[in-house]
Structures are given as C-alpha cells and as structure tokens.
C-alpha cells in the first residue's frame, strides 16, 4: 500500500526532479552569495562564482559548511533573510559547544510542515489520527516540527512534549492516541512504564510511531514494535538543515526517502571530502535548495550513512538513505578501532538483552578499555551464576568478534541506567573527563 502526501513530487520521474533541483540550487547559490558574507568569502576562496553553478552536477564545486562555520557566525551570521522576514527561531541543544541558531521564514515553515506531513502520511497517518507528540516543544525542532505537520493534515495533535512518563502513558490510553512521535529510546521507556502500570499494548490504540533524533537499530525497531503493538517508522533530520523531515521511511521500512526536492544529499569521504559513489558508506552532506532564511549548502552532518537510488516498492522515486550508522562524533576510537554504539546495540538485541545499555570507555594504566553495561531483563535472567556468567561470556565473545577488541560486559539490575526523555546518552568516555 502506498500513501503519499504529495504524490506528484514524491513519485516524479528522476529527470523532472533533477531539473527542478538544478534550478533551485542555482537560485539558492545566488541568494547566499548576495546575502551572506560568510558564504561569499568561502566561495571566493575557492574561486567559485554563482554563475558557475548551473546544475546539480556542479554541486561539488561549492565549499563545505560545517558546525564551526555556524559557531563562528553565531547567532545570525548565516541568515539569508532579514529578521523582519524571519518568523521563527530554533536552536540545537548546544551540548557539544555553543548552540546553533537557525531561522525560518513563513515559507520555510510551510515547506518543513510539508516534509513532515509526507512522513506522517507514509506511516499511514491522516486526518483521522491522534498524534501524541512527545518530542520536546521549544527551541528543539522535534515537537513544533511534527506539530505543524499534524495540523496541516488535519489530524488531532496532543502536544504533550517530553517528560513525566506516567502522565504520558495515561494520556496515550485515555486520549486514544494512534501515532506516537518521540525518540526511539523514549518509546521504549514509555513501553516500560506502560507495563509497570499493569497495562499491555492491548490497552492502547497506537498503530504507528515515527521515531527519530537519535540513531537506532532494526533490532530496537522490532523491540518497540512488539512492545507497543505498532509499526515503527524512522524519520531523519537535523536542526541545521530543517529539523525532522529531511528524510522519512515508507511502508517498506528499508531506509528513508530524502525529500530531495528541498534537500540534496551527497555522501563524502570524511577524511578527504571526496564525493563517494552511490552505495558507498560515508558522511552525509545536505544542501537546502528551497530555504530562504537558513539555506545550508553542502552542510557536513557528521552522520555516517549510505544512499541508494534503487527503485522502491512504494513507488517513490526519492533517493533512499540507510539509517545513519551513527555520528562521527559518537564514534569511539578504542585502541585504534572505530566503534559505533549502534553496532553494540545490534549485538545486545540479538542476544536477548534490552536496548537499555551504556558504553563506558576508560583508560586503565595505558590501555583503553571498553565496558558495556546492560540491564538484565526477564529474557536474560537465570537463577544460577554459571548460566548468567555463560551469557556474559557469550556476549563478550560476540562483541570481540564484531569489534576486534575485547569488551567487558557488566550486568546491571533493571532500571539502573538513567532513562532519557530525549536523546539517550549511550557513551561515557572517561578518557575525555580525565583530559
């Protein structure tokens, strides 16, 4: 079954899409060159003039923009529209440094709502649905982004925002919410609290969930789907590009369609900056071609993923990206080996553990050590030390064969790892704290 919000563009022939992208790209390049001194300077450094960018084939001639550019121009330096045309500000959490401030014109907000509406419709949503939005409302893009899309579709929005999980569960139950929007780790926590209240998935009316804002694995998807009795769809986005709705999953659940009539995607080698061919894993880079207030061109996301243009059974022609494997920021380098939390999560779920885990990296003496702390759920509990130790050992062996380095497993009691209402904190790097 194929559900489209904007069928014409979502299923447009590649050539039509390409022509549209090229025209929009050229316009946006002219816009930023004329209006944003930082862009102009960066383009001049590379000897690129706006008239050099005639089509999407010329994209790679443009300079990259990265988080540091946004910090250097804090707060409004990258805006390509005067504040009198800007109607909304959002900002990133700023947990990894100075926060990033982004602006939207009314047209930007309209396009953003369309992008998120495509995601909701692809997940089977529409005017008859009740959307429980448990993403934070405020400077974070998640809450207001999904809210605007639900409004556009005429669905009922329940703007609960994040926090107070027992109350979230009561609302889910009593209001008959049909679609849940939050981070995947928070969805699991909601399922836990539902169970603790003596309820099952049969006591709620949810049919689907749209989860994003953090990397998650297919194993975690199955876990959420089973516990809440829903289909779980991925949504991708980042504040710098627009917020949620840069890419969304269709019923096939094998990757996310990029809304590439608005956002162009490239995959590059994070070391050399070279554009990689389709199907090769690398860093995702996005260019906004319709935004007015904050049009990022070749923005380096630090998310690692793969894109494919292979036809999708849903009928959409929009390019698909895999679930990001993680951020280059989240990637741990332990004894010279690259480790992504998502790899560890996959192994945990395959071995019957829950997705409640934490990775602690420590430098004991001269050697980096990695410890995976995971809660003992009913799927793992055994009443002899021998049986539990054997499970611990099996997990350690599986991690060793996956990562190529030894990892210590520490079993924890249920509910000892702190639950997050937003993005889960997966990694505690004690090496950083010591520096």
């Amino acid at each position: 079954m194929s559900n489209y919000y904007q069928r014409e563009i979502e299923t447009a022939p590649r050539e039509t899409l390409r022509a549209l992208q090229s025209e929009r790209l050229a316009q946006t390049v002219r816009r930023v060159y004329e209006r944003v001194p930082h862009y102009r300077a960066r383009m001049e450094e590379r000897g690129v003039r706006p008239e050099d960018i005639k089509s999407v084939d010329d994209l790679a001639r443009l300079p990259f923009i990265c988080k540091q550019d946004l910090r250097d121009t804090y707060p409004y330096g990258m805006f390509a529209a005067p504040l009198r045309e800007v109607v909304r500000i959002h900002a990133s959490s700023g947990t990894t440094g100075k926060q990033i401030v982004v602006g939207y014109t009314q047209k930007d907000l309209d396009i953003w709502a369309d992008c998120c509406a495509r995601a909701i419709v692809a997940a089977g949503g529409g005017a008859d649905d009740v959307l429980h939005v448990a993403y934070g409302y405020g400077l974070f893009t998640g809450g207001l982004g999904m809210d605007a899309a639900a409004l556009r579709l005429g669905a009922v929005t329940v703007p609960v925002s994040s926090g107070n999980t027992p109350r979230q569960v009561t609302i889910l139950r009593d209001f008959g919410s049909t679609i849940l929007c939050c981070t995947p780790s928070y969805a699991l926590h909601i399922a836990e609290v539902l169970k603790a209240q003596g309820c099952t998935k049969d006591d709620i009316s949810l049919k689907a969930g749209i989860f994003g804002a953090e990397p998650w694995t297919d194993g975690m998807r199955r876990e959420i789907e089973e516990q809440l009795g829903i289909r779980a769809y991925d949504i991708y986005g980042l504040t710098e590009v627009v917020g949620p709705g840069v890419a969304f999953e269709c019923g096939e659940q094998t990757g996310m369609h990029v809304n590439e009539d608005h956002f162009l995607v490239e995959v590059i080698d994070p070391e050399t900056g070279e554009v990689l061919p389709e199907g090769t894993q690398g860093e995702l880079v996005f260019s906004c071609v319709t935004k007015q207030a904050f049009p990022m061109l070749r923005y380096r996301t630090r998310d690692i993923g793969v894109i494919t243009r292979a036809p999708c059974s849903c009928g959409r022609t929009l390019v698909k990206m895999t679930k990001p494997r993680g951020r280059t920021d989240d990637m741990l380098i332990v004894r010279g080996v690259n480790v992504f939390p998502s790899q560890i999560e996959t192994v945990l779920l395959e071995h019957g553990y829950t997705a409640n885990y934490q990775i602690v990296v420590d430098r004991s003496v001269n050697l980096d050590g990695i410890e995976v702390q995971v809660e003992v759920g009913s799927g793992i509990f055994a009443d002899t030390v021998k049986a539990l130790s054997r499970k611990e050992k099996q997990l350690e062996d599986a991690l060793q064969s996956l990562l190529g380095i030894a990892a210590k497993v520490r079993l924890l009691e249920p509910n000892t790892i702190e639950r997050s209402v937003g993005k889960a904190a997966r990694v505690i790097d004690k090496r950083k704290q010591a520096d």
Partner: protein
Amino acid sequence: MVQQLSVFLQNKPGKLAALTRALAEGGIDIRALSIADTTDFGILRLLVSDTAKAKAILDAGNYAAGITGVTVVAVPDVPGGLARVLTLLADGGVDIEYMYSLIGRGEDRAYMVFRVSDEARLLALLEQDGLSTIADAQLGIR
C-alpha cells in the same frame, strides 16, 4: 517441590538491605536464604512465606526475579547425615546445581534445599533409602 524465588542483584553496598526492606514492608517472612556471587553480581535465592506476593513486590520494584522449583530434603540430624544424602546422589548420578540449608529444623532432622539435575530421580533415591522431603505447607510457605 517447593517454589523458590531468585533475584539478580548487583554486588553493591545496600542492595540486599533495600530488597529485604521491600519484602518486610509487604509482610513477607524469609524461611531460607542463600547468595551465589561473583565480583560484579549475585543471585539471591529465597524461600518465603508467600512466593507469589513476594514476586509481585519485586517485579513492581524493578528487580529481575524468577521462580524455580527446588526440593527440601529432611536430612538426619546426626554426624554423617548430610554425607549419606550426598553420597546417595553422587552414586545415583544426580548432579547438584546448588544447595543451602534452611533456617529452623525438625526434631531430629535438618532441612537442606537442593536444586538438582533430575528431581524425579532424587525423589526415587531418597525413597529407596527411607529419607523424606518436606512440603511447602510444612515450612509455612505458600
């Protein structure tokens, strides 16, 4: 067969105290207890006055807990009594997964809790040797 409660505990100060407090608040009496531990975690095994209620208390308190069937054997309370039972099991090919003693005893019998590889075989061996097991009701367990 007697129902035994087992609980996963992290090997940290205060963990056992917190658990026993939770059971005490629920009016649960502990009849027998043993702990098997490693450096990181332990498994606490309990025979209690009301197993189902205690399990519900632990579930609500977010413990990982399970119920396992064990056998309580009335061992002659004389020198060599336990050796007699253990020899019987060894010769009869019954493996002991774990065992511990019960608080309280009969007139001339000490009570030992056994978790074994083959309970039916254990019962047959005991019967042949004129030894008996104790039912939960006799221990004030339900």
